């Protein structure tokens, strides 16, 4: 879910990540290795309820000034793709915790015809009291 949040439709008020206008299915498996360490993995499939107009630009970068620059409409797309996440977190004593999250999104057509897959690494360290 971390990539849908980061790369998906943004919450419009404060422009921070969120998930909306979306239907999704998510499967999660968690395994407690010991009292302090947890492994987990998740698979998410998502689709927009209302498609987005996608398009691409042709002729802008081919170096030939005679080539017309055109906006090519690719139509409304709804497929957000499939995301695979995995992570591990560990509690160091009572007040210190760390985790490592990894995510890979096989982007769907809603990201446009030329979008690459998205990969994310997100470690976190926290002190609680």
């Amino acid at each position, binding site marked *: *879910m971390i990539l849908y*949040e*980061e*790369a998906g*439709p*943004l*919450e*419009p*008020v*404060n*422009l*921070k990540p*969120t*998930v*909306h*206008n979306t*239907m*999704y*299915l*998510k*499967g*999660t*498996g*968690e*395994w*407690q290795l010991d009292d302090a360490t947890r492994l*987990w*993995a*998740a698979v998410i499939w998502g689709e927009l*309820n*209302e498609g*987005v*107009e*996608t*398009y*691409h*630009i042709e002729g*802008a970068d081919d170096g030939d000034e005679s080539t*017309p*620059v055109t*906006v090519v409409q690719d139509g409304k797309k709804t497929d957000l793709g499939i995301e695979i996440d995995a*992570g591990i*977190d560990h509690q160091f004593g009572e007040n210190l*915790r760390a*985790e490592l999250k990894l995510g890979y999104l096989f*982007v769907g057509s809603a*990201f*446009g015809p*030329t*979008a*690459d897959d*998205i*990969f*994310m690494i*997100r470690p*976190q*360290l*926290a*002190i609680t*009291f």
Partner: protein
Amino acid sequence: MSRASRGSHAIPMAMALWLCGAVLPRASHALDFDATGWWRTRYFFMDGVPLNPAGNDKNTEFLDYRFALYPTLSVTDEIKIKARVDILDDVIWGNNENEPSILTGLSKGTSSYDRTLAPVDEVEINHLYGDIRTPVGIVRIGRQPSSFGLGILANGGGTLEWGPDGNGPETGDTVDRLLFLTDLGQGLGWKDEHWLMGVAYDRTIELGVFSQGDDVNDFIFVTLYSDGKLAPVRVAGNTEVGTYSVLVTKSGSSTTVGIQEGYFRFKRSVAESTWLFVEGEGMIAFGASNRSGLVGNNKRQDFVDSVTEGLVETLGPFGEEIAENGTDVGLIANLVAQGLEEEGLSPAVAQTVASQGASAGFDVARDEPLEVLLGGGVVRAGVESGPGRFTGEWGYSSGGDDENVLINFVGPVDATGPEAKEALTAQVDDALGAAITGTKGTSYPSTPNTTLP
């Protein structure tokens, strides 16, 4: 939709705190000060992000901070003042101001901006409220978190998130509220079960104290049955059923929106150390709203106004007409994008910014109420056995059949050089030419309080 409480089972905090307090022995003391909180730092590396403002370079990496402090001042056992103070709230590392030199970085290698390069107050008091415990319930007054169930509609946020629950609700939903909560279960003599019931009033918009027509008020009724052991913030009973109802009204207008939400959770033991559980939440909003009636958020209003002003400047009288009458969100986004491109932004960034502006409510007619139909829900089911936990989840979030998508995903649009940019603008002009006379749109802003995990 905004973010949900991934995996948490939050209820209005006051319910839990009051119930905890109700069963604890009361010691007499005055002005006791206590605080909890957390500090975190995160590193992000993302490759292939389509919304990366860096344009062609689709890799990005950055670090951020956040320190959340929850102080409590106990005036008496029955009267407490509580707050949440966020310090460097998701502020990214380094000096992020406009093109600082290396020497600037040596002397002042910090600033206070978030990942969107929006300035952040170094210290923010996001919650400040008083709790007054009475023999029949608790009264909570002030700026406070709003949470219920799984957090689709109301999520107070402010919690650390770990594991597969996503990145967390961040700041969460905060309201200026007068709240009364009680436990009818105690009145009925229940020992291990609770029937929580509460009413609340929120003032969500107050643009000017001498203008009554802009006031937006929320009236809330909440009830929850739980057999769980109540604790601050979290309730996780084996059986829980609750509802959360909101009536939104705006003074001097036809805005009336009803929001109804339901939540349930059932967890049963099927073998030694093995549990099955299912939980879910669904919400629907319906009614009619004028432009700013549904969502009380001054940031939204400010942003809409700024985009409106920009459109008028860009398009002159035609822009003003659009601003007054509303039109299709996609059209406006593209029109604003043109103006932003002329200001020097790359097409991808211009399109993104414009889409966000349009989605902030710009597309909604100013003077006419708009039919509202929003909905969303999530259902989880799974098994807990020994050290393992496996969950399947289905989520749905929609603003109705005619909701426009709030962001146009824009691929790596490259229009380098003035000739290409000019040509692109011309193409967009041509593409939009027929649509400029298009019909009034039927889209509306998605409420930030509707969240899916």
